[in-house]
């Protein structure tokens, strides 16, 4: 019994927020993870919006190029894409700069991580948003047009609100994927939660404790996000006819 209490006490010591505990490192890692996930999610939304409109209303060449983009990203493991983009993007930016006679620049791990995951998210977001736009009843848009609503107002007042409710479940899923995909950046050495956990575990040899603690943090993040998105969706669906799946 005392052994158990001792083990619990030493576990708590390891997880203390201030050094010599490693809890602070884990929380800093979590903050980095959330930051990258948010950046990548935002970038993905931007790319996805462009991609969705391109796929729906673009010319044949644009549509085929977008199809290639979404197919490739969805077929190749994120880990491989991250490695390719992580080195290739920074390398080619520098090659271009050097070719035009500029100095090479440093691209921070944070920016590279956001860019890489954002490109991956963009492909999935394209499909989610395309589906959502298509699900807006044509009659609603036609009615608004018939009333003489200008295109900008139409998008803001009719298409976007109607689309949002349909897009939210898919977007919630994408956000969860983004938070979990940040763990892959551990493989390129970025100090997000999984990498911080691995370092803490290696330094203290308390592998089990730290991986469990990190698991709880991720779980908390995912449960909170799910709850938040559910609330958002309820808000977005107010006044819309109930859908039955």
């Amino acid at each position, binding site marked *: 019994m005392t052994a158990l209490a001792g083990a619990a006490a030493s576990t708590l010591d390891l997880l203390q927020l201030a050094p010599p505990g490693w809890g602070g490192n884990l929380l800093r890692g979590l903050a980095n993870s959330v930051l990258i996930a948010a950046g990548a999610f935002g970038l993905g939304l931007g790319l996805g919006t462009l991609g969705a409109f391109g796929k729906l209303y673009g010319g*044949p*060449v644009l549509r085929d190029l977008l199809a290639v983009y979404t197919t*490739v990203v969805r077929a190749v493991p994120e880990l491989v*894409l991250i490695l390719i983009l992580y080195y290739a993007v920074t390398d080619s930016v520098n090659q271009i700069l050097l070719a035009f006679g500029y100095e090479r620049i440093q691209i921070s791990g944070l920016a590279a991580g956001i860019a890489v995951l954002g490109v991956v998210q963009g492909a999935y977001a394209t499909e989610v948003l395309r589906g959502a736009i298509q699900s807006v009843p044509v009659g609603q848009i036609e009615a608004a047009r018939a009333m003489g609503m200008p295109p900008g107002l139409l998008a803001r007042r009719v298409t976007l609100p109607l689309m949002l409710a349909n897009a939210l479940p898919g977007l919630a899923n994408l956000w969860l994927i983004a938070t979990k995909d*940040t763990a892959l950046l551990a493989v390129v050495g970025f100090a997000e939660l999984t990498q911080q956990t691995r370092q803490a575990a290696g330094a203290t040899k308390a*592998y*089990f404790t730290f991986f469990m603690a990190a698991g709880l943090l991720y*779980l908390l993040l995912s449960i909170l996000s799910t709850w938040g998105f559910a609330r958002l969706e309820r808000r977005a669906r107010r006044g819309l006819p109930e859908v039955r799946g």
Partner: protein
Amino acid sequence: MTGFCQPHRIIMALVALALIGWSATTLRWDWVPDYAGLAALGLWRTIWLLVLSAALGLMLAIPLGLAQAAGPWWLAAPARGFCTVIRGTPLLLQLWLLYYGLGSLFPSIPWIRNSDLWPLLRHAWPYGLLTLTLSFAGYEGEVLRGAFRGVPKGQLEAARAMGMPRLTLLRRIWLPQALHRALPTLGGETVLQLKATPLVATITVVDIYAVASRVRQDTFITYEPLLLLAVIYMAITGLIVLLFRWLEGRIPSRVA
């Protein structure tokens, strides 16, 4: 308009061909013959990890889905909890928890080293297979929950009224219809599972991804092995998609 051979497609195909030709001639591929044997072994390992973990995961997902859809609360709650935990944490972390976390506990439990299981536990692949299986079960369990719920009540009631025993009802009516409903997502989940397999390379399992990493480290060639690797994964994805399309075509859709 709907034909495949539109003018711009021909131009795009030509551009693609030119790109392939350019990379074949200007990039370095001289390392390929040296590593072909290793790559074949790695590819084989990737494929059986995928097939085995998906098959075992699906089997585990059936009770998980059934428990959530129709089980009593003391079965539904743990099943639901399991799916939430698996879906809420990164696979990489689960893998490291099982491999290094459990591994760090071994020295304190001496009888494990003397057990018959020890030779198996020394290898890395059982941990990879276990993690991938649990992950697939977690995601697919959630899908099957919906699929079991989606089977029309009337069908089940009719079977029950005919006096069909519960197990037969599950085997003959409920499960086939639920699986049929889940089939379209099953293909997608299998592709996601393929994309998860390279993570096992981080726990010393030598799959096709690990072979590509080895090439990168031995030869200091950065992009070529990764590009070839991407092409290989795309080819496997293509095969999976075709396989599931064929499966869906074979199974009659009268039941829906």
